[in-house]
C-alpha cells in the first residue's frame, strides 16, 4: 500500500515551474469561462448550428481515430521491428504532418486527392468519386494530421518493450500471429490507448487541413472548430459557447478515458 510519506518530496526547483505551467494552461480556460454569456446559454445551446457541427465533429473524429488505429498500429510495428534502407526517412515522412502548418497539409491533400490531384483525377475519371467537400474528406484530413500521434506513441512503446517476454513465448513455440495478438499488443495496450486518445483529440480540434481540403458546408463538412471560427466573425457569444462545448467534451473524454484505460501509464495512485 502506498502512502503520501513513501514518496520523495518534490524539489522546489521542480515545483515552481510545474505550477507556472499548470497556471499557464488553466488561465485561458478561466478567461474563456469568464467571457461565456451564461444567460444566453440555453438559447444558444439549442441552436441547430452548434449541435449539427458537434455531431459532425464527433462522427468524423471517431472515424478518423478508428482508421488511424487500423493503419497506424501496423505502421508503428514495421517502424519499430524491421530494418530496411530509408527507414528513418519513412518515419520522418509519416510524421511530417505533425509539424506542417495544417493549411499546407490541406493543400498537399488536394494535390493528391483533389479533383486535379494525382489520385483524385483517376478517382474522378474512373469511379466518378470526388473527395473534396465531402464528409470522407474531413476524415481524411483528420487522419492525415492525427495518425502520427498514434504511430509515435506505439512505436516508442514497442521499442521500450522488454524483449524477454516475447523471446520466451517464441521459444515455447508461439506463432508470430499468436505472439503479436496475445503477447505484444496486450503488453503495450496503455500506449495504444494513449495514442488513440491523442489522435482523437487532435482530430477533434482539426481546422486548417479540414477547411482547405474538405471546405465548409453546414451538415456535411462544417466541424465545430470551423463553426467556431466563423461565429467569431458574426456572433461572438455563439463562438464562445461552441468553444465551451469543445472544451467540455474534450475534457470529459481526456479525464475519463485516461483513468479507465491507461492504468499502467496513468496516475500512479
Amino acid at each position: 500500500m502506498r502512502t503520501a510519506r513513501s514518496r520523495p518530496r518534490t524539489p522546489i526547483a521542480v515545483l515552481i515551474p510545474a505550477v507556472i505551467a499548470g497556471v499557464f494552461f488553466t488561465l485561458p480556460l478561466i478567461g474563456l469561462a469568464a467571457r461565456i454569456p451564461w444567460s444566453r446559454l440555453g438559447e444558444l445551446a439549442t441552436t441547430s448550428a452548434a449541435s449539427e457541427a458537434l455531431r459532425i465533429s464527433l462522427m468524423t473524429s471517431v472515424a478518423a481515430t478508428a482508421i488511424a488505429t487500423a493503419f497506424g498500429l501496423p505502421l508503428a510495428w514495421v517502424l519499430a521491428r524491421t530494418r530496411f534502407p530509408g527507414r528513418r526517412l519513412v518515419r520522418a515522412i509519416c510524421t511530417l504532418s505533425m509539424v506542417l502548418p495544417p493549411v499546407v497539409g490541406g493543400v498537399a491533400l488536394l494535390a493528391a486527392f483533389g479533383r486535379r490531384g494525382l489520385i483524385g483525377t483517376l478517382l474522378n475519371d474512373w469511379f466518378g468519386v470526388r473527395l473534396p467537400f465531402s464528409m470522407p474528406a474531413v476524415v481524411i484530413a483528420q487522419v492525415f494530421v492525427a495518425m502520427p500521434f498514434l504511430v509515435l506513441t506505439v512505436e516508442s512503446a514497442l521499442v521500450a518493450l522488454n524483449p524477454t517476454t516475447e523471446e520466451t513465448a517464441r521459444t515455447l513455440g508461439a506463432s508470430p500471429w499468436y505472439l503479436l495478438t496475445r503477447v505484444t499488443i496486450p503488453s503495450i495496450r496503455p500506449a495504444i490507448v494513449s495514442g488513440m486518445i491523442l489522435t482523437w483529440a487532435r482530430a477533434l480540434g482539426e481546422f486548417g487541413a479540414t477547411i482547405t481540403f474538405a471546405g465548409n458546408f453546414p451538415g456535411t463538412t462544417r466541424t465545430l472548430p470551423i463553426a467556431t471560427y466563423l461565429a467569431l466573425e458574426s456572433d461572438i457569444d455563439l463562438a464562445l459557447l461552441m468553444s465551451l462545448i469543445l472544451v467540455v467534451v474534450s475534457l470529459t473524454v481526456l479525464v475519463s478515458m485516461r483513468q479507465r484505460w491507461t492504468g499502467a501509464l496513468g496516475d500512479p495512485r
Partner: protein
Amino acid sequence: MFCMMAASCSTGSNNEAGSVTVFAAASLTDVFTALARDVRDAGGPEITLSFAGSSTLATQLVEGAPADVFASADNAQMDRVIDALVNPGEPTVFARNRLAIVVEAANPEGIERIEDLERPGLLVALAAPEVPAGNYAQLVLDAANVAVTPATYETDVRAVLTKVQLGEVDAGIVYASDAAAARDVAAIDIPDAVNHVANYPIVALHRDNAAASAFIDFVMSPAGQQRLADFGFSVS
C-alpha cells in the same frame, strides 16, 4: 509627375523625414505598392505602407498610430477615424470594388452569366455569409434571383480564389480586384444592376499635411486612377 501635380513637395513637406506613411486596406496591397513605386520613380517622397483589414487599421489610428494617410475599404471605418481626429482632411472616394465571378482560365464549363451558377452539378465556392465578401455575394445572388447551393463556404474571400485556381471548384464569387490580380483564372463580369459596389475612401489625417495631400492628389490623378483600373478597381 508627382511633383508636377503637387507644387508643395518641391518646397518641402511638414513631414521631417520627407516620407509619407499610408495605412491602407488589405485589398489595396498590390495596387498601393505599385502606386508607391510610381511616386518614388517620379522623385517624390518615400511612401511607407502598412496594410491590414480596414477595421484593424481604424482601431490603430483611433489609438493614435502615427500615419499621414488612411485608405479604407469601406465608409464605416473611415467615419470611425474621422470622428476621432482633431483636424482631419476631407475624405474622398478614390476607387470602387465590385464583385466578379472567377472560373478556371480556360472556362471549361462555359460560364458566361451569373445565372449559369445555378446549373446542377456545377461546383461553386462562396465566402461564408459571416465575412463581408460572402455577405455581398449573397446579396448579389439574391438580387439576380439566382439560387446557388455552394460546395463550400470559405472563411475568407482569398480562399475562394484559391479553390478556383486549384481547379477544385468550377466557379467562385470574389472581388473584381482579387480576380484581376490572380493568375490561372478568368473573370466574368456581374452587371451593375445586381452587383454590389464597395466604396474606398482616402483621407489626409491632418488637413495641413502637404505631403499627404500630394499623395492623395496623385492617387486621384489620371495616372493613379489608371493604376487602380489596371488592378481591377472601378474608377470614375
